[in-house]
């Protein structure tokens, strides 16, 4: 399998010498092409910091992150933006849609930033809307949509540029359980049929159970690593719950 994301001994410290917080303490792992990886951990475990480092919104203190073979910790200025624009897709907990634009325009914006021509934009938007089942909301504004629809629009915007890696930060955090399920099924569809590589951060075991692999993080370190293998989702969910229990009280409230 081709290696999309390679993380080597990264560390992230906050604060100064007298008062040092290690948000990430020597983490290494790989994500292969076509994988759907969930990162689980309690609040403060460092999972969002990890995602921010991968998405280049934040800088690591030491270590290297390779995306498609390029060391992104060495990127600077506009190359960073170019990298973000062309290699990554983002999905956020609070959707991060522009409230002044319609769903269609929100999705198209990701392409128009790359100076794609109008015809391709239109084709691609229609195609991705079909994939994510949001064709009927394309003309609507964010405030006219449900949370689930918003998150699918946001996902459409993330994948339309055909990124190497899709980063999702608590994508189901603001959704009701029905919408969350529907979204995760779409993620599975994107993963299986469109071969999208997804890295998702969550503290919810149910959400994590849709992934093909779950990495557990506690206090800035990798605590455990679960592969779904041939398990059904239910079986995988039970295994995740076991690990969560093992993690201790921190995650007890996570269900």
């Amino acid at each position, binding site marked *: 399998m081709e290696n999309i994301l390679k993380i080597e001994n990264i560390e992230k410290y906050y604060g100064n010498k007298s008062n040092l917080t290690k948000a990430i303490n020597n983490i290494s792992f790989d994500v292969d092409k076509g994988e759907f990886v969930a990162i689980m951990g309690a609040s403060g475990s460092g999972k969002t910091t990890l995602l921010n480092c991968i*998405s280049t*919104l934040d800088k690591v203190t030491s270590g290297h992150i390779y995306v498609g073979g390029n060391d992104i910790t060495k990127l600077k200025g*506009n190359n960073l*933006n*170019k*990298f*973000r*624009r*062309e290699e*990554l897709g*983002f999905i*956020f907990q609070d959707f*991060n*849609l*522009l*409230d*002044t*634009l319609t769903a269609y*325009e929100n999705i*198209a*914006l*990701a*392409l*128009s*930033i*790359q*100076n*794609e*021509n*109008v015809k391709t*934009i*239109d084709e691609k938007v229609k195609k991705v809307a079909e994939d994510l089942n949001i064709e009927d909301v394309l003309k609507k*504004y*964010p*405030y006219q949509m449900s949370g689930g629809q918003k998150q699918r629009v946001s996902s459409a*915007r993330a994948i339309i540029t055909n990124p190497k890696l899709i980063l999702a930060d608590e994508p189901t955090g603001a959704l009701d359980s029905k919408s969350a399920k529907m979204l995760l099924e779409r993620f599975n569809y994107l993963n299986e049929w469109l071969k999208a590589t997804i890295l998702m951060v969550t503290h919810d075991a149910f959400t994590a159970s849709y992934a093909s692999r779950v990495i557990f993080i506690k206090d800035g370190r990798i605590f455990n690593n679960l592969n779904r293998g041939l398990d059904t989702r239910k079986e995988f969910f039970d295994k995740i719950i076991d690990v969560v229990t093992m993690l201790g009280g921190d995650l007890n409230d996570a269900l």
Partner: protein
Amino acid sequence: MMLFKLSVKNVTKSMKDYAIYFFTLILGTSIFYVFNAIESQTVLLDVTSSTMDIIKLMTNILSGVSVFVSFILGFLIIYASRFLIKRRNKEFGIYMTLGMGKRKISIILFMETLIIGVISMFVGIVIGIVLSQLMSVFVSNMFEADMTKFEFVFSGSACIKTLIYFGIMYLLVMIFNTYNISRCKLIDLLYANKKSETVRLKNPVICTALFIISSCVLGYAYYIVTDDSIGAKDLDYIFKPIILGVVSTFLIFWSLSGLLLRMFQGSKKYYYKGLNSFTLRQISSKINTTVISMTVICLALFVTICVLSASLCIKNSMTENLETSAPADLELEFCMNLSDEDNSNTKGQKYTVKEILNELDFDIDSYMEEYIEINTYCSENLTLGDTLGSKFDEIKNKYTYLGYDDEEKIIKLSDYNRLAGIYGKEKFTLNENEYIIIADFDSMIEIRNRVLMEKQAINVFGHNLIPKYTECKDGFIEMSANHLNTGIIVVPDDVIDENFIYANYLIGNYKAKDKDARIKTEEEIINTLESNNKINNYKGFEGTTKLMIAQASIGLGALVTFIGLYLGIVFLISSAAILALKELSESSDNKERFNMLRRIGADEKMINKALFNQIAIFFLFPLLLAIIHSFFGIKFCNIVLEFFGNKGLFSSIIMTAVFLVIIYGGYFLLTYFCSRNIIKER
């Protein structure tokens, strides 16, 4: 004390957000000071007593205008502080959840206003004092006084006045803030920025229809004001186009906000390029909610442009006219045919000016190098209506308010030629059946020329005369600062019936030639005549001099310029500041949006460009319409103020443009840089 600390910290912390607010306050204060300090600068000027009177009048008017200006600035400050409070809703919400009472929050706000007020007043007055030194150069230049020595002027009264006026304004702001705080609910404060505004899209058909209709209405309003007969119409007549203009301006902004987006969306290639779709949506979503302020700003800009260019233009022509419109030193007049009420005791008195002077024991010859005596005549058998002859009905339809029953003034050819000799004008000859019309008031010349073209014959004291020329000839009898002669008929000497004498003039030049000697001569003449009681027996006796006209017109020119500058600049600042604050107050929303753009990979260059475009369009929109308005507005001013002449219109427009670029452009750049700072990451 803790509250005070909090206030100080708040002010210093949010200095960046307050920059425009501060800037506006300081600018407002310093301008207020500068214009109120003019009085103390003019005291030092070496000018005649009559100029001093005009200066007194000017400072009185300026202080009246200051009251008006303080209202505008007061509104502006309240408006601005409301914006700033809105931005800090969340902060106040947090104070309240921590158990701070509304009273204490009011106290915090009170102290913040106090701190800001004190600082801005202090800085404003200091800058004002510096600026007013430049102003004094300008003032002395204006009144053509010699700036023999430069003196540092500090006007205590202007300073105190500024403090009082602005103090009252800040007091109002404090009251207003307290009221605002007492009204709001905690939940609204905490979640103020979570409420996203609903974007109502307007029906494009209605928008298009409205746009077309309002453009037509605006065009009609333009037509009304630039129709050249408007100068002769009633004053009420102007309200119609003003109301039409205001309403259609509003509707144009309203419909344009819906249309503009559609138009650009039509061009998909443009719309889906870079951040264009984002920028356009930003603008249209804001225009939706700011149509009213856009209208106000557009109209304020329009007023600014018109006031500035018209006042500068009047000033230019005022000073330029003098050489041609007051060519002789002294003009004395005795009008024998005043209306009944005016001179019941002198009715029918027929004196010449010379006879009156002799009666007063005044020896005019000792002062004068040369002078002439001439008569004018008039008869109720020759009114303006009669002169217009066959064209009368046509002209009356168009210019309803002209005095068609006014008797025409008539002058003998020989008298006129002597006058022309003194004035250095063209002399004429006439055949026995010919007449000439002398005029210099442009719109009347135009009317009269139409009649003269037809070779209209007139009847003067029983003689039938035809025009020698097909147009009016330039000239006048009575000197004045402006071209006000609507027409005097020159006829052959034989035609005149001496029974119809109307007025007698004595016009001439002093013996004294240099400026000081002439001033001295003039003062002697005026003092001698005015101190003589017998002069009251002659009601129709009056006079004017070159110097008087010069001073009056310099004074009037200065008056108009200062008031124009004052009002123009204040309007300009107000409208630019409102726009700037509106832009900035929304930058917190924008901050999130721009962060979103960053996350999906838009680079800084693109983002800055989008921000620039957004702000630029917002500033340009009202300006553009205001410029179109002003084009017709200035045309209108030209027609109305025709007797002032329109010399140097071009240069005054350039001056206006310079003011506009500096102040409006300055605000635009300031807004852009402040916004860029606000949306910057972290």
